[in-house]
């Protein structure tokens, strides 16, 4: 990997994000950050691709992991969509729009929090972020992609919420991906100080039907008594491939809610590791995925309890159509000494076609005492007596199935617990249901 020096003649060369070292402009960034990108590239190059014997990729279709053809878009690449029409929320504390990792619009209406780009964050809070703006590895199998993300990182959203600031309106971050073989590396960092409160909605979309690649990362770090409500709505097109790596850390009495709404994208892999480090900390992970066509949605989670008296809850729901596949692998880990932990994990699959496939691997590793832990996983179809009930009330079978499936997803939507966001998620899910035709 000698291509770390910048060759001006090479800038117009089409670089594969997977094969060619990025053309960094490291002049304006702190040395530690430049170094972190260099070594991340090296780590990426040295790590093998996930193999058949990797437990963290069990059941995954490894043939889909072919990213050689994707390129980092040039700065002026990607048409800017109509910004007004893509706003999901009426009132926001801040709203940022990116096209292929390029910031095209930023509006901040609440100045009690800082919403910064990567360059701004490095300049103003370089020291603070030294520990944070590193390789966003979750330890759940995607370490090669985490290193790639770090090496290819061009911009990020860094949200800093000062102590006791309760931000009433959500921050909305929109990431567009467009152009054939484009690759993007969206990154969101949310840091809340003591007793601060913030809600962030991240929205991933495609400008057209070209096949793109997105390897994103989110880092949620909640200080003492603070609260973060993070929602990622994925509405990419069905040719896109997505990896999203989340790390969550909750301090004493902190509350972090991490919700993933996967409505499209051809292939999605999400990893979410929640370190419940503080006493009295609450970590919640929710997800609803609608998988249709030949989609594969592969989700891996870890709830790691490191101190006593902490709580975590997980609910992942998948609705499967056509030949779609879902994989859920979750682990609750209660470390030595993390007594009095309450941890729950539930994965439920609703199978709506004869050829879909749901894989569930709910796991527990308990090393402490006086814990309350349970996990459950169910896979099944819509019960015949429920359909009969609808039919006896004059509602046709197809509509009944539709309504039941919507209700199934609604449980997660309500857990997001933000009226406006919940409503728009419900709308997006209903629209996606309408665009899929269940087999009856």
């Amino acid at each position: 990997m000698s291509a770390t020096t910048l060759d001006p003649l090479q800038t117009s060369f089409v670089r594969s994000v997977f094969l060619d070292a990025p053309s960094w402009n490291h002049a304006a960034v702190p040395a530690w950050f430049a170094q972190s990108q260099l070594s991340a590239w090296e780590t990426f190059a040295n790590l093998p691709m996930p193999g058949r014997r990797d437990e963290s990729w069990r059941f995954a279709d490894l043939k889909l992991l072919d990213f050689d053809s994707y390129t980092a878009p040039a700065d002026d690449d990607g048409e800017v969509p109509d910004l007004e029409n893509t706003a999901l929320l009426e009132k926001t504390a801040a709203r940022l729009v990116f096209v292929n990792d390029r910031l095209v619009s930023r509006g901040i209406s609440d100045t009690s929090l800082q919403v910064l780009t990567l360059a701004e964050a490095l300049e103003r809070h370089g020291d603070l972020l030294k520990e944070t703006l590193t390789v966003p590895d979750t330890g759940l199998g995607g370490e090669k992609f985490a290193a790639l993300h770090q090496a290819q990182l061009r911009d990020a959203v860094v949200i800093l919420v000062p102590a006791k600031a309760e931000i009433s309106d959500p921050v909305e971050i929109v990431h567009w991906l467009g152009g054939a073989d484009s690759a993007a590396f969206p990154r969101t960092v949310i840091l809340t100080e003591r007793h601060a409160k913030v809600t962030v909605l991240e929205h991933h979309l495609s400008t057209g039907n070209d096949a793109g690649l997105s390897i994103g990362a989110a880092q949620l770090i909640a200080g003492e008594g603070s609260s973060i409500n993070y929602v990622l709505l994925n509405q990419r097109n069905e040719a896109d491939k997505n990896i999203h790596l989340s790390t969550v850390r909750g301090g004493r009495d902190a509350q972090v809610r991490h919700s993933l709404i996967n409505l499209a994208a051809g292939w999605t892999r999400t990893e979410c590791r929640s370190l419940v480090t503080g006493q009295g900390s609450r970590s919640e992970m929710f997800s609803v995925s609608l998988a249709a066509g030949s989609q594969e949605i592969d989700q891996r989670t870890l709830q790691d309890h490191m101190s006593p008296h902490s709580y975590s809850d997980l609910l992942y729901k998948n609705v499967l159509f056509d030949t779609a596949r879902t994989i859920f692998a979750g682990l609750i880990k209660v470390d030595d000494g993390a007594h009095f932990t309450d941890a729950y994990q539930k994965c439920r699959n609703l199978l709506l076609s004869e050829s879909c496939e749901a894989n569930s691997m709910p796991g527990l590793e308990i090393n402490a005492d006086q814990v309350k832990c349970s996990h459950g996983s169910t896979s099944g179809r819509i019960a015949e007596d429920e359909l009969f009930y609808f039919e006896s009330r004059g509602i046709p079978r197809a509509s009944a199935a539709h309504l039941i499936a919507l209700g199934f997803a609604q449980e997660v939507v309500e857990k997001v617990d933000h009226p406006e966001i919940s409503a728009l998620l419900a709308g997006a899910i209903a629209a996606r249901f309408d665009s899929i035709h269940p087999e009856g």
Partner: protein
Amino acid sequence: MSSTLTPDSELDTDTMRAVDIDRSAGDFSYPENHTYDAGYGLSEDTINYICDVKNDPDWVRDFRMRALKVFREKPMPTNWATKDLENINFDKIRYYLSSGSQPKRSWDDVPDDVKRTFERLGIPEQERKFLAGVEAQFDSEAAYSNIQKAVSDQGVIFVNSTEGLKQHADIFRPWFGKVIPTGDNKFSALNSAVFSGGSFIYVPKGVKVKHPLQAYFRINSENFGQFERTLIIADEGAELMYMEGCTAPKFETSTLHSAVVELVALKGAKIQYVTVQNWSNNVFNLVTKRGVAHEDAEVKWIDCNIGSRLTMKYPGVIMKGRRARGEVISIALANNGQHQDTGAKMVHAADETTSNVVSKSISVGTGRATYRGQVHIPKHLKGCKNNTECDALLISSHSRTDTYPAITVRGNQHATQHEASVSQVSAEQVFYMQQRGLSEAEAMSLSVNGFVNDLVREFPMEYSVELKRLIDLEMEGSVG
């Protein structure tokens, strides 16, 4: 001494003993007296030695040689299993030992020292007579074999596997190695290379064996791996219950036990296979057990793991015919230094098949209990159902329990559910019992017994009594 119910306190010795069971009953050994000894380590010569001594037919020799090659090629499954497996030194294990005595026909002919072994194992005289047949394995060969007349009159074949493959090749060979192929895993390959002993049972069409068939066996030589191979075939409509139980003397260095058990339940047949495993704390117990259930057949594994250093055992059922049923009922107790890595594998391969897994584990001291499960329902099938429940009980603050199920369901014609929970003996419960005059140790043991009680009841009468006795035994002594 602080209460056991605060997380940071260590258990007092009384309680430790109370929740432990008596393993010292197996702590004895008789002078070794082996006519045949294949020596340490594993090579082509070892295999030739075993074949020569056992007078194996050529096809068995070829089978063993092929298996040896597979064993060498297969990596250790440490990508998912414990690294403790790397501590097995295959060169320090003796793969074949035999006293050379032919299976005996009556109890009187059994050598005295072998009889003494059974005496110490505590099989009551009445029970011996009551039991249909006793197939006891002493080291590699069955030293005693008694088939009650009533059973053989029904046409049931109950012999050791060596006899089975020689005298009943027409039934034995078509099924041998078919349920668990040599290459299934590294340890099934090892067993295929060096197997000796084990049972072969054939139950003819429509025969329902009233009394359970039973085999007791022991490991009695240091560094001696026991590689028994059992094949049970229940023909159409036949019914059978088979029980195996084992204790082992304690040795200073590790021993390896790697068995392969294959069950075939043809149309409408029922097989129940019961195991109580109480190896000493230095035994690696790496066992492959699987059954095939044809149309309307039922295969049920009832499994209790109490001893060993590391047990890796995931009994499986392949439900090959319509309406076949598979069931695994398992209890594991992991004490200090022990790792019970058990589970179940349910492969649905026909319509309307149902499977049920109920697993309960207890971790004491630094013990670790792991549940690993696999449920597979392919898409071209209809109406398959699986239910899995695993419950874990943690006794002390350093105990560990893990659950790693994997469930694959294809298509919308099926239903599966999996549930697991982890809990403690609740402080209120213990307090209540203490208030009624029970000691803390008694209260604890009562709670542990209560936790596994509904599963213990699933065991055949003799075993559930024995199990309860195992759990109760030391508790009595620890009180006062």
